[in-house]
C-alpha cells in the first residue's frame, strides 16, 4: 500500500468528517467522510482504511479503501486491488487492478487536447 507523501493534506484513520469537503491541494484520506468531496484540479487518494460515503469531484482519484458515491475525475481514476467502490465513475482514463470491486457504471469522456 502506498503511504502518503510528505506535504500532502491528510485525514487520518481515526478522523470522521460529515459535510462538504473542498480544497485546492491534493488530499490523502484514510478516515471516514460522509457528504461530498470537491478537489477540482487536485487529486484524492482514499487510503486502505478510508471509508467514504460521498460524491467525489477531483482531477485524479486513487481508491485503496471503500468508496460509496459517484466519482467525477477530470483526468484519471485508479482502483487498487483492495478498492471497494459502489457508484458511477466518469473520467478520461481508468485503471483497475485485479481484485478491485466495482458496482456501478464506467463512462469514459475524453476531452480533445
Amino acid at each position, binding site marked *: 500500500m502506498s503511504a502518503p507523501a510528505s506535504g500532502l493534506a491528510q485525514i487520518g484513520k481515526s478522523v470522521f468528517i460529515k459535510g462538504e469537503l473542498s480544497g485546492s491541494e491534493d488530499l490523502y484520506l484514510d478516515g471516514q467522510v460522509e457528504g461530498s468531496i470537491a478537489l477540482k484540479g487536485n487529486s484524492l487518494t482514499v487510503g486502505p482504511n478510508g471509508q467514504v460515503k460521498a460524491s467525489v469531484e477531483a482531477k485524479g482519484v486513487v481508491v485503496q479503501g471503500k468508496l460509496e458515491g459517484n466519482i467525477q475525475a477530470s483526468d484519471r481514476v485508479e482502483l487498487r486491488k483492495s478498492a471497494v467502490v459502489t457508484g458511477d465513475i466518469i473520467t478520461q482514463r*481508468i*485503471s483497475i487492478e485485479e481484485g*478491485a470491486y*466495482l*458496482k*456501478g*457504471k*464506467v463512462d*469514459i469522456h475524453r476531452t480533445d487536447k
Partner: protein
Amino acid sequence: MSSVSQNFMKLFRGSSGPETIPAQGSQKLTRRSSGLGELSRLWESAEDLCILDLGSTSPANIRHFTEGGHRIYSEDLLTASTDPELLTKDEQGSIVLDSRKFLADNLVYPAARFDVVLCWNLPDYLDESLVKPVVGRLWSVLKPGGMLLAFFHTRDAGPDSPCHRFHIVGGDTLEMQKIVLRREARRGPTGAVHTAISDGFQLQRVFNNRHIENLFHDFASIKFFLARDNIREVLVVR
C-alpha cells in the same frame, strides 16, 4: 446438488461475508464463444452501447468496452447473493434468500436501460430463490431488441464444475478464471490467525433446454450454441 442454504450457513457461520478472489496462481483458460462472437458483431458496429456485466469485476471487460466507446455497468450478482442479510425463512421454516430484498439492493435501473446483458454462468450458480426474479428484472432493464448472453452447464459437465469468471480478450475469445471464496482472516481461540479458503460457488442445478426456454419465456427469441466443453451458450433477445 448440495443444498444452497446448507452451504450458505456453513460459509457464514461465525464469520463475516466472504471475499471473492481469483484462485491464487489459478490458470487462465481460453475458450472460444459463439455467443460472444455474435454479440461482438453488434458492439463493434455500434456506438455508445449500454452494457451490463453481471460477473466479477473484470478490468479486462471494462477496458474492452470503454475503449470501444461504450458504457459498461459492473455488478457482481453472485457475490451480492452471499450477503448474510438476505437470509430468511419460508413458510415451511426452511432457510431461503429474500429475493425482494435482493432486488431492492441490486439491479436497480430504469426500465429499458441496457443494450446487452452478460450473465455468464450466473443462473447455474445463483441460489434457486433468486434465479427467476433476477431473470424477470433483467427482462425489464433490457431495451426491446436488447440481447442477453448466458452459459449453462450440460449434465455431462458434472456436479463439481468450478465457477469461473470471464474476461473478454477480443472477438469471440474469453479467458476463464476459477473463483475461490476466502473468508477474512480471524484470530482463533489459541491466538493463531486462520484464513479459511473454500472452493468457489457450487453448481446449483443443471438446466435442460426446456428449463432454459421456460426461464426465458418472456423473451422474443432464443438461440442455443452447444460447445465441446459441456457448456450450452444461450443468446436471448428481448
